[in-house]
Structure formats: structure tokens, C-alpha cells
């Protein structure tokens, strides 16, 4: 296969993943509005290019750590829409037995170490995974997703400092979607996050988070450095949170012009435009099928019952 063909194939795959994430969330959002989601839902619609681009350079053995807004991260790293849908719909077949929901999805066998209800809570864990890879002399890396709001949690600086000192195979990926709950990032972020890397003697870059190829490129460089023992990199990807902080939040605190501009950065059309339309249509169809099947699987699955409450707290009882 020629390099061009490979590039085309890679781009199609990326588009397909982004589309899968988008349709997954649109579908689960509908389910939420129908009252079928027994938990909070933080949607990442509009941010798909960050997740898919960042995971593109990763191998199955690489790890990612996600956040409270992590459906797209999980899907980008290979989580199955059916078990994710089941989890969000509170079904016993979900990744966390239907008892965890959106903020507690983990698939360690795929290197997905977990979404997290604590903002910034995953940062030390990601650093730890990178530490583990280094001790084990594996050339795997850990990619840590976090929001611009999470950068205010002290563990951010703790992680940069030690990761840089130890040259850990860590990629710190700040997904800046302009909002932190109901307030603009300017309330939360002094200066620019990617510039904080320099103070810790590590490279920092800023990238257009709505261009999946640019994100993939930037992260690929960071991943290559990490695999080669060159240490961590801080990447800030600029994108926009289309919807409210959580499903149900009308986000009346934002003005329409800003929202319209934000949505204009939709990462899907740009990528789709670069594809053979027939292939793109085919991908869309596949995605529809996959999503329909996932929803079917979830709705067919039994709701998590009280029997799931006590299990899995200790090895003895696992």
C-alpha cells in the first residue's frame, strides 16, 4: 500500500472514530432526555478530534487516563460502544456493572485506566502508569487527558515536576474546551497552560484541537519522544464544548455568537471533506449500525440490581 493510501486509510479510520463518538453521545443524550440514563452525563460533542487525534499514535499496550468528560477518550482508545452504552444506561452488562456510570468507566485490558469524578484525580495515576512502564523497561507510554480547569489542581504541577525529573513516558494532554463547569476558562487559567511546561524543563505545544491530523501529529511527536526515553511533553489542544457542562445544563451563561463560532469549528466536516465521499458514506453507515447495535445491546440488558452493590471491593470477595 502506498504512503498516500496509508494516509487516506488512516484518515478514514480517524473520521470513523470521531463519527462513532459523536453518534454515541448524540444517542446517549437522547436516552438521557427520555430518562434512561440514571447518572450525570458530561458530553464531549465537538471535541472528538482531540481524543481521536491523541489516541491515533497509541498502541493497545499504551495507557490513557481520562476525566469526567471521557466518552470520546474511551471510544478513541477502543472501548466498545455496547458496553459503554450499557454502563451509561445503568445496565449490569456495562463496563462497571452499571453501577459506575459515565465518570467511572475503565477498561484496563485496553489501557483505559479510567474516567474520573475528581477533576485532576487521574493526573497522578497517569504519572504512575508512566513510572510503571519505565521501571518495567517497556516502551509503552501513558497519555493523560485533563481539562484546562483541572490544571488548577495542584497535582498538575506535581506531575510535571516529577515526570520531567524522571523523564517519564508521559504525554500530558490538556483539552481546553473554553469552559470549566459554568464559567469561562479566563476565570480559571492564568496565562496559557502549554507555556507552563518550560518552567518544568519539558516541551510544551499548543495545537488546534479541532483538526484531528494536527492533534495526531503533535501527540505522535510527544509519544515518539516518550518511547525513546526523552521524557514527558505537555500538549494543549484548543477546542470548544458545544453543550452545557452536563446534560440538562442549558448553558445560558454563554452568548450565542461565541457558541456559534465554537460550533463552526466542528472537526468532522473538515476531515470528511478530505475523504472519498463513497468511503465516508460507508463509514457513516457502519457507525449507524454499530450505534444501533450498542443501544439495542444496552436496552436488552438487565438494569443493574442491588446484587451489584457489594461485589468487587476486595480481592477475597472479587
Amino acid at each position, binding site marked *: 500500500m502506498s504512503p498516500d493510501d496509508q494516509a487516506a486509510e488512516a484518515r478514514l479510520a480517524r473520521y470513523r472514530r470521531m463519527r462513532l463518538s459523536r453518534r454515541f453521545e448524540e444517542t446517549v443524550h437522547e436516552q438521557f432526555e427520555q430518562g434512561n440514563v440514571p447518572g450525570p452525563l458530561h458530553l464531549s460533542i465537538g471535541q472528538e478530534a482531540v481524543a481521536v487525534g491523541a489516541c491515533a499514535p497509541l498502541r493497545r499496550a499504551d495507557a490513557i487516563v481520562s476525566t469526567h468528560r471521557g466518552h470520546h477518550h474511551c471510544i478513541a482508545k477502543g472501548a466498545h460502544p455496547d458496553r459503554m452504552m450499557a454502563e451509561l444506561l445503568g445496565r449490569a452488562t456495562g463496563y462497571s456493572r452499571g453501577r459506575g456510570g459515565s*465518570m467511572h468507566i475503565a477498561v484496563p485490558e485496553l489501557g483505559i485506566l479510567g474516567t474520573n*469524578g475528581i477533576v485532576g484525580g487521574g493526573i497522578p495515576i497517569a504519572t504512575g502508569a508512566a513510572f510503571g512502564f519505565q521501571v518495567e523497561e517497556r516502551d509503552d507510554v501513558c497519555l493523560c487527558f485533563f481539562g484546562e480547569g483541572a490544571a488548577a489542581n495542584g497535582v498538575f504541577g506535581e506531575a510535571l515536576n516529577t515526570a520531567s525529573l524522571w523523564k517519564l513516558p508521559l504525554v500530558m494532554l490538556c483539552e481546553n474546551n473554553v469552559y470549566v463547569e459554568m464559567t469561562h476558562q479566563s476565570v480559571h487559567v492564568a496565562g496559557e497552560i502549554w507555556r507552563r511546561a518550560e518552567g518544568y524543563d519539558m516541551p510544551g505545544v499548543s495545537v488546534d484541537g479541532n483538526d484531528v491530523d494536527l492533534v495526531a501529529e503533535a501527540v505522535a511527536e510527544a509519544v515518539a519522544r516518550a518511547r525513546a526515553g526523552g521524557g514527558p511533553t505537555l500538549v494543549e489542544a484548543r477546542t470548544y464544548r458545544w453543550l452545557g457542562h452536563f446534560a440538562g445544563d442549558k448553558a445560558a451563561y454563554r452568548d450565542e455568537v461565541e457558541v456559534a463560532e465554537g460550533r463552526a469549528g466542528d472537526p468532522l466536516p473538515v476531515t470528511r471533506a478530505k475523504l472519498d465521499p463513497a468511503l465516508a458514506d460507508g463509514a457513516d453507515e457502519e457507525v449507524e449500525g454499530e450505534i444501533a447495535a450498542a443501544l439495542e445491546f444496552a436496552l436488552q440488558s438487565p438494569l443493574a440490581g*442491588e446484587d451489584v452493590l457489594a461485589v468487587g471491593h476486595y480481592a477475597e470477595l472479587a
Partner: protein
Amino acid sequence: MSAPAKSGSLKFWQGVNQALFEEMERDDATVLIGEDVARVGGPYGITRGLLDAFGPSRVRDTPISEALLVGLGTGSAAVGLRPIVELMFFDFAMLAADQIVNQAAKYRYFTGHSLPLTIRTMCGAGGHNGAQHSQNIEAWFCAVPGLKVLMPSNAADAKGLLKSAIRDDDPTLFIETQGLLTKRTEVPDGERLVPIGKAAVRREGEDVTVVAIGRLVERALQAAEEVEDEGISVEVIDPRTLSPFDAQTVIDSVRRTSRLVVAVEATAPCSFAAEVCARVTESCLEEMDAPPIRVTSPFINIPTPLPLAEARAPGADDVASAIRACVGKE
């Protein structure tokens, strides 16, 4: 938006909101800081109207820096303010534990000066927020000299206790309960301060003393109604202040009823319920006709789906069964 009507039937959150309004009006040194407390009036709307009323210097949205938040309170209290710091969920207080316990709580001990800091937070599994947004760790802070720990169970006490906490010259931890936010109670007109360190007898009875806090108070009262028809007379006591704990009121009651049930939303080990059992049995075991019974959440994590979370939390029926077991009428 402005402050809700000053009296009548109020929701729990409105009691908190009114206390904040009244105390911020009363004393310019009072400030409120926290995540999303200003512009949007709090993720649950509890602090709505305060920014408009008191302006951006005294009411501030902060970054997500819980440890710093408490330090902002400690440092500003040390130089003359009377700060109120909101930690959105009690679970997040873990990120600030050093600043609360090693710093704020010990400030007077080290310096001999007052530290009029109020930390507000919200506990419990009343939402569908899962294992990291629903925990009850009040017991941790009851073990800390220098701190005062408050947990109101209704709108009137929420208002009156918070006002007392804000005026208090020691660091106070004011714990709101997620499951109570929208519950209504009558709130008397005019200024009413609920004293710190004083328990409330919610219902008088002869056969068994039920000590309940937060969300379990209402459930204990329901249970008391339920078993009344069965001829069991229940006394229900709400400590309201967990530290310093008004043990005497409880002990006097148990001396009369000779039976004790303690109901809390937390898990049992080393909980406030354990403390009540210990304090009471230490003082009047000989006068007790039955073992004390704790009604708590099982020792497992809090699931996200609300039905499961509610199934895990102790209910009125659990309290009722405990009462029956305690009086030997199962």
C-alpha cells in the same frame, strides 16, 4: 435574582441562602468564595443572588484548587476577614485535608488568635453522582481538636446554625446534605441563631432513644410514627453539632428510655454513630436494657444510579426495624 422571602416555609437550600445574605449584609468582613458560587450562584443554586448583592470582591468564583481555597479562608481570616469557603462536595474536602486539619484547625493553638473561618460543603448520596461525590466523612473532622463540625437536618437549623457558624471565632465545618436540599420546613420569622453544641430533641418518647443526624433525622421521625401504632414510644434526638457533641442530652434520654439506636448515612466503622454508642455505653451501660444498634450504610461504595444509591442508604424502614429489634418486638 435576590434573596428569597424571609420566612414561612423554606427549602433547606433557601435557609442556607438566607443565612448567607443576612450575615454578609451584617458584616462587611464576610466574603464567600468557591467554585461557581458567584456568576451562576452555585451548581445547585444555593448561593444565587449573592454576587449581585455583594459584588465581585466579596463573592468570588475560584479555580479548581480545593487546598488553596481553604488556605484563602485561613489566611484572609488571619488578617481580618470572616470568610466562607464552599467545597462543592464533601469528597473534595479530601484535597484540602491538610489545610483544614493541619493548618486552620491548629491556627489558634499555634498563634493564640481567632480564626473565624466557615467551610461549607455538601455530603450524602441524595444525588446520582456516585462514589466520589456522595461520601460522608464527618467523622474524620470530629476527631480534630480546634474544629467545630455542624450538620443541620432542616431549613430552619441550616439557617440558624450557619449564622452561628459564620459569627463563630473558630473554624467551623458546616455540612449540608444533598438529600435535603429541596426539603421544606417552617422557618420562624426574624433573626434566629441556633446555638453551636446544643442537640435538639425532635420528638419525646419513653421506650427508645434514636439519635439521628442529617438526612436520617426525618427518616427516624417517620420510623417513630410507624412504630407508634405498634405501641412503641420513640424519642428522637438530633445533635445538629457533631463536634463538640452534646452527649449529655443523649445520655439523659437513654437513662430514661434505657435503649439506643443511632442512625447516620455514613458507613459504620469509626463513624459518628460509633462515637455515640461509645459515649453512651461508657456513661450508662448499666441502665441499658438492650444493646445499642447502629443504622448505617453498608461498608461498600456508593453506586451512581439513584435507585441503587437509595437502596444502599439507610431508610425509615431500616430505622423502624432497628427500633423494633432494640425493644425486642420483632
